[in-house]
């Protein structure tokens, strides 16, 4: 008997959630309340047919779309036929990153040239470029110029206790994904140096950023 009751409750739960995304209720909500429910944001991913899975989650242009839907439009068709294998993998990675209680994401871009390769003070800009490679930023101004070399490393750690965002997206209850304790730590470290040249395009001095 208990199992039957649970089954009936689950059916009502799903049915009610699906109904909430249709017709009059959707129109009334979107017209009167806008995209955010008193219970919290409805669904971050309910953005219509033009949505895309990225590592930061599902993104899309929600402008002009009715948003009180349990799922985006064409969800099954879009997820079932991703435009490329790469998109499919990104979607899966984003789902697992969002669904995990603890996730660790690290990115790095570029590498700073070794300072040991830097020519001595007084070297020409051409010699510096030949030794270090293209700068990330090169500013030329009256009376001199500067070249900046830098690299960045970022680490995000996310702790979710409760309903993770990626699973809240699958639960057709407005604000379900808000029922969680979430702690996100972002650690951005950059390193690099700036070279100053005089008006004759000769290396004048070097400024090295302390390790961040």
């Amino acid at each position, binding site marked *: 008997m208990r199992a039957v009751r649970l089954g009936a409750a689950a059916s009502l739960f799903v049915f009610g959630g699906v109904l909430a995304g249709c017709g009059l209720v959707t129109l009334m909500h979107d017209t009167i309340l806008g995209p955010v429910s008193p219970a919290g944001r409805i669904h971050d991913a309910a953005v219509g047919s033009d949505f895309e899975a990225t590592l930061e989650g599902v993104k899309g242009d929600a402008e002009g779309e009715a948003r009180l839907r349990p799922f985006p439009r064409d969800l099954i068709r879009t997820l079932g036929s991703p435009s490329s294998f790469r998109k499919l993998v990104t979607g899966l990675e984003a789902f697992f990153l969002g669904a*995990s*209680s*603890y996730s660790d994401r*690290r990115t*790095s871009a570029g590498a700073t040239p070794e300072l040991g390769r830097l020519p001595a003070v007084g070297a020409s800009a*051409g010699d510096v470029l030949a030794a270090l490679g*293209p700068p*990330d930023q090169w500013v*030329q101004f009256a009376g001199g110029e500067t070249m900046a070399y830098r690299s960045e490393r970022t680490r995000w750690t996310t702790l979710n206790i409760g309903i993770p965002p990626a699973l809240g997206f699958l639960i057709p209850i407005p604000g379900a994904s808000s029922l969680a304790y979430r702690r996100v730590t972002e650690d951005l470290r950059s390193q690099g140096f700036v070279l100053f040249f005089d008006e004759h395009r000769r290396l004048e001095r070097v400024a090295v950023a302390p390790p961040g």
Partner: protein
Amino acid sequence: MRQLFPSFLTAAALLSGCATGTEQFGRPIPSDRITQIEVGRSTRAEVLTLLGPPVRDPGSKKGQGHRSEVPEPVEGALYWEYSERHERFGTAILFTYFSQETLTDTLMVVFDARNVVEAVAFEQETRR
């Protein structure tokens, strides 16, 4: 309890996985041809003949799509770029690890007012 243990192991196996991959953007820069560029002698036309069309020049935004941070373009310079993005992904039940490293080879050739090579800068990160 004995019946639960195999179920737990099966569930753990189903909820775990790993993946690695490399994405490539553009064509590798032929480093052997860079040595043929002579500062003060080679012309813009000769460099273009040698290396093909650049991915970026100060007047174009082409080729910037895969990088969030791109070097500031310099007036009178042409750029050739090749990038590799290495990814590692692993998940075990409720823990997920993801790392992404973007390495870029960049060749910048600076021309003077006469369209003659003034400086050549090449940085190869992909073979470090």
